[in-house]
């Protein structure tokens, strides 16, 4: 994972994914919701679709699991 982003593990883990939601009311910004980890799955459309196939996410069969994901321009002749 780190290598695919051109950094090492130490550099990679300086970041973490997250979805933050804010509301603006009378000039004040409020945080109304935050999530991360599997709370981000609504933003991973492929998982919901694969969950409706016979093989599902099929991550257990992949030695590189669960990191089968590639950038959309990096999949080779699938």
């Amino acid at each position: 994972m780190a290598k695919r982003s051109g950094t090492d593990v130490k550099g990679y883990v300086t970041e973490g994914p997250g979805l933050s939601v804010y509301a603006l009311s009378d000039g004040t910004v409020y945080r109304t919701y935050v999530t991360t980890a599997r709370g981000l799955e609504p933003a991973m459309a492929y998982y919901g679709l694969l969950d409706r196939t016979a093989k599902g996410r099929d991550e257990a069969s992949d030695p590189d699991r669960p990191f089968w994901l590639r950038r959309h321009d990096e999949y080779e002749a699938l």
Partner: protein
Amino acid sequence: MPDRTATEAEWKTERDALLKEEKELTRRGDELAERRRALPWVAVEKDYEFETADGTKTLADLFDGRSQLMIYHFMFGPPYEAGCTVCSSITDTLAPQVPHLKARDTTLLLASRAPLDRLLAYRERMGWEIGWVSIATTTSIASSASSAATMT
């Protein structure tokens, strides 16, 4: 090879039973969404600054005339040469939602800590039409997101 096969009639019986459970989950999801919306709001005290394609902006500026703002913290830190692969797959889902969310008074943006020029070059490569701001000048807003990690 299939694990199990069935006639059309047998299949329909099992599918109808599963549909009942799917509907239960849908309704449970609606209830949970209502409780999510009922969470209290927390005023943001810190003055964040963001580098954007249109200059330096505050968090309030990022709303861009709307009353709701959603920020995806995309893993692209200063040591990264390219964005995280999983975040990239997530952005493939997020970016096309921007116009639909705008129609519901919501601005959706990406935020990362790498310098803005590197973010925008990567956005060009990936072909995404979504705003991306750099939070290189401030403490990461992801810290609050990371603290929620154990909740999900």
